[in-house]
């Protein structure tokens, strides 16, 4: 009701913020994104000019957003422009072309929202998004994202390790795999009215992959709450796997003994493997995976060489030691 009446107001987000409980507010939301970005640029300039050691305290305070920890697991690479990150999306629930989600997810309501955690765990239950934000410290994770379509981005996610959430529900020894499910609601997700995929979207990880410190649940990006088109209010991010593994708008997580069915794999098993680890040696029938293009590089930029596990081999290589990556692609 309230959102309806405020729909045409430019400052709707700010107003909504006022009526939300304090715990819902991402620290970074207090700073407008433009300001935040300008500060970052300033800071970079300052860093370049003076070196971090002699930085004035004021600048340092501005950069360090309250409570939003920087993660040592972040990449140093320059993030892709915000405009590209929020306008170039594969989110078939809101249309099958890249600009569709930004357009068609505008009115998507993500509150109330809760996630069911069921299956092989001692304390199955349901948890609301507000509680997730309160219980788990949010941090910034700047990750590379490599899409199976041979393009890539660098995205400053905000989120927390999936393992923190799973541990809370105490997985049993039966929990060998984790299955995830996106919301199914064709009323709100127009893309689901056509059966291009077997809705709802499903994804899965092996338990060791799910518990790996690089694997996060994202609640935001660029220091602000997750835009709808990027999978609000809660999505998975597994940076060493092709983007389609990083399931969006999650409503259910199920711990189980067997490998769960996954959406793209079900559509075409020879194209999209269950593991879907980024690997330049294993060609997709449609696209060579040897090279990719970084979004924002422009028309004439050289393609970049794709690295095994998207450059995260030192962190995740051990998970797959002894495994035939050609067979389990």
């Amino acid at each position, binding site marked *: 009701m309230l959102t309806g009446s405020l729909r045409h107001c430019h400052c709707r987000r700010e107003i909504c913020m006022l009526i939300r409980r304090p715990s819902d507010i991402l620290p970074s939301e207090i700073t407008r994104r433009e300001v935040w970005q300008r500060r970052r640029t300033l800071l970079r300039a300052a860093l370049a000019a003076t070196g971090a050691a002699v930085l004035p305290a004021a600048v340092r305070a501005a950069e360090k957003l309250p409570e939003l920890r920087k993660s040592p697991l972040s990449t140093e690479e320059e993030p892709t422009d915000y405009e*590209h990150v929020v*306008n*170039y999306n594969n989110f*078939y629930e809101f249309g*099958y072309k*890249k*600009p569709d989600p930004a357009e068609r997810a505008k009115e998507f309501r993500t509150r109330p929202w809760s996630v069911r955690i069921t299956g092989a765990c001692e304390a199955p239950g349901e948890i609301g998004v507000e509680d997730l934000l309160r219980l788990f410290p949010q941090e910034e994770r700047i990750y590379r994202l490599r899409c199976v*379509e041979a*393009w890539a981005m660098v995205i400053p996610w905000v989120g927390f390790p999936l393992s923190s959430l799973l541990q809370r529900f105490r997985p049993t020894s039966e929990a060998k795999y984790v299955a995830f499910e996106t919301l199914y609601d064709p009323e709100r997700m127009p893309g689901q009215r*056509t059966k*291009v*995929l077997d809705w709802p979207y499903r994804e899965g990880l092996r338990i060791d992959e799910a518990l790996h410190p690089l694997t996060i649940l994202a609640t935001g990006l660029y220091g602000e709450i997750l835009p709808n088109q990027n999978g609000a209010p809660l999505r998975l991010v597994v940076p060493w796997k092709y983007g389609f593994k990083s399931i969006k708008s999650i409503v259910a997580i199920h711990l189980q003994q067997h490998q769960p069915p996954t959406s793209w794999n079900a*559509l075409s098993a020879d194209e999209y493997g269950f593991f879907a680890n980024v690997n330049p040696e294993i*060609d997709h*029938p*449609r696209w*060579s995976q*040897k*090279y990719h*293009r970084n*979004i*924002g590089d*422009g*028309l*004439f930029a*050289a*393609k970049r060489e794709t690295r095994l596990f998207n450059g995260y081999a030192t962190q995740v290589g051990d998970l797959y030691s002894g495994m035939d990556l050609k067979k389990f692609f």
Partner: protein
Amino acid sequence: MVLFGRAVTGDLGANPVEELTHRSGDWALRFLLLTLAVTPARNLLRWSLLLRYRRMLGLFAFAYALTHFLIWLILGQSLMWPEIFRDLIGRPYVAVGMLAFVLLIPLAATSAAAMRRRLGATWKQLHRLVYLSAALGVVHFFWLTKADWSEPAAYAMVLAVLLVLRVRRQPARRETE
């Protein structure tokens, strides 16, 4: 050209190479089907003036296919020959697209009126290849599609209708010619 200018100024969004490939491919296929639609439309409307535009439309189709091919070669593959070669033999949708394009080359080359006169009946037979090229274009689109088959299906329907019209018309034409 307009497309290209917009791409350079960043107007084509996040992935301009993909956008250019898609738009040029779309237009190549649309002009191919439009070219094929000329004769049935002439027969239907009994308006032979339309025929004058057939060659122009066909050449537009060729120009877009050529652009599409060059974008793939230069921007898409950055002229990396081993990759190009692997794509051409390893990916059926590329191979089919290539064949569709190669078939258009002799048609474009023999499109001048003088050539047409010189080749006579051979010209007519040769130019039937345009049906094959369009069909391969549609197959190409199907084969490159990941999940949403509605667009290639729409093109396939149009092509099917045009082929039916063509086949039905055949005996009648023999009488009048």
